[in-house]
């Protein structure tokens, strides 16, 4: 990942601008949310339970798990009446190491009562525009030899449209989704324009365990993702608030995890108890390291992390 000929001191000197910009972006993000009345919170990094997700594997820490996302705790706060929350937290996902992945990474999550997934996408647009403005880029971000025009509106495409056009099948009606991820990475993402952000929206219902289904079309989940400069930046949901539905979906995920990883995942009972009080809301998780990569003109996560995993 790193240049083998470089000493640690040389590498840390080279990425200094990336680390300085990271600190600057944290200040901008915090004021962006605080100025709109969001409350910054912290929830356990060493968690007693996390959401069961087949393809997100946690690190074990004695009887606890390292947080893969603060989502369940954030929603427990929302259920207790907190309306607008945000958090910048360290998250951990096992075996995720690559050019754009470090097993320990930073997620920015925020939630709004009385809102939905497209409102969270709207917030993301405003946030990226705000950071670009504060960093004096205007609405043009130079990135990897191109200029990304972040002026509104951002390009919106549904999962169904993108897959029918570029992969030749419809994942909304298909029973078998085993090729979804590989087609997304190898056939869909490469077709996204590099000079504009893209919003991929309305995922197949089975691909969003914590999202609400579209009331008019229950084959589709209210989930949207933001892609900028070839990177997956953020994932938004209209949050599922039905404890019965949520338990059924968790039971399915837990069974899959048992089958594929032979691991007994605990049902998040406290979260399910709180869900009865969760108001309609939207939530989103944004990869902060990638946001910093975007504003630092690099596609290598190691360029914005002081001590990435070897």
């Amino acid at each position, binding site marked *: 990942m790193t240049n083998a000929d470089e000493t640690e001191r040389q590498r840390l000197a080279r990425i200094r601008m990336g680390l300085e910009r990271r600190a600057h972006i944290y200040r901008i993000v915090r004021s962006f949310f605080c100025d709109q009345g969001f409350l910054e919170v912290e929830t356990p990094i060493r968690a007693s339970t996390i959401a069961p997700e087949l393809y*997100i594997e946690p690190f074990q820490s004695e009887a606890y798990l390292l947080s893969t996302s603060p989502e369940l705790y954030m929603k427990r706060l929302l259920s207790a009446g907190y309306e607008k929350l945000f958090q910048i937290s360290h998250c951990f996902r096992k*075996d*995720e190491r690559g*050019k754009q992945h470090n097993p320990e990474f930073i997620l920015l999550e925020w939630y709004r009562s009385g809102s939905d997934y497209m409102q969270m996408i709207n917030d993301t647009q405003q946030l990226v525009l705000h950071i670009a403005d504060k960093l004096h880029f205007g609405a043009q971000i130079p990135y990897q030899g191109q200029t990304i025009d972040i002026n509104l509106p951002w390009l919106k495409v549904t999962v169904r449209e993108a897959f029918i056009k570029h992969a030749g099948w419809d994942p909304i009606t298909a029973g078998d989704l085993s090729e979804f991820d*590989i087609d997304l*990475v*190898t056939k869909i993402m490469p077709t996204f324009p590099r000079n504009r952000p893209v919003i991929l929206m309305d995922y197949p219902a089975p691909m969003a365990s914590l999202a609400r289904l579209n009331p008019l079309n229950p084959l589709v989940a209210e989930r949207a993702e933001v892609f900028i400069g070839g990177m997956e930046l953020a*994932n938004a949901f209209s949050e599922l608030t039905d404890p019965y539905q949520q338990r059924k979906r968790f039971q399915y995920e837990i069974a899959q995890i048992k089958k594929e990883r032979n691991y007994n995942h605990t049902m998040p009972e406290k979260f399910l108890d709180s869900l009865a009080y969760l108001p309609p809301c939207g939530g989103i998780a944004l990869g902060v390291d990638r946001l910093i990569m975007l504003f630092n003109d690099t596609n290598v996560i190691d360029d914005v992390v002081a001590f990435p995993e070897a």
Partner: protein
Amino acid sequence: MATDIADIRKNSKLLINEIPYNVDDAEFMKPGKGRAIYRFKLRNLQDGSTFERTFHSGEKVDEVSVTSQEMQYLYNQDQHYVFMNTETFEQTLLEESILGNKKNFLKDGTLVNVLLMGEKALDVTLPNFVELKVVESAVSNKTDTVTNQAKMVVLETGVNLGVPTFIKEGDILKIDTRSGAYVERITAKK
């Protein structure tokens, strides 16, 4: 040995359909909530050809350990070249077809590095320079020109080589095994 795909790194060695490959490049891609995808650039360790292959998380592959051992070339027989481990005196065979052009620079006693998978030899790495004797020198029908590769000679390994016209039978020549080109005449033969 079945290894989880997540544990394969750049320069791991894999066995696929009995053919050993080096992972020249490994790219990890993963949608946040989706399955990990591994895109490997694989180099066939027997013929050097490369291709790309994509794996899903959870797949298993056969990882093999490939070592390099200094060995001495002994002789060839029936399209097989015989090398000897200079420490254990164990002998190993390599097919002529795998050696390719490298056989042109092998003479008895040459020390080479042999790439081994278990006990099976996959390839040899020659020293960058070898010294070979001219056994046959055709008469040059022209005088020296600015291009110094003016005539062909036959070396002790049987290979033809373009050399300057002043080279005579019995001369020892220094050859660059990477380009196959004449470098210089070694005048003082011990």
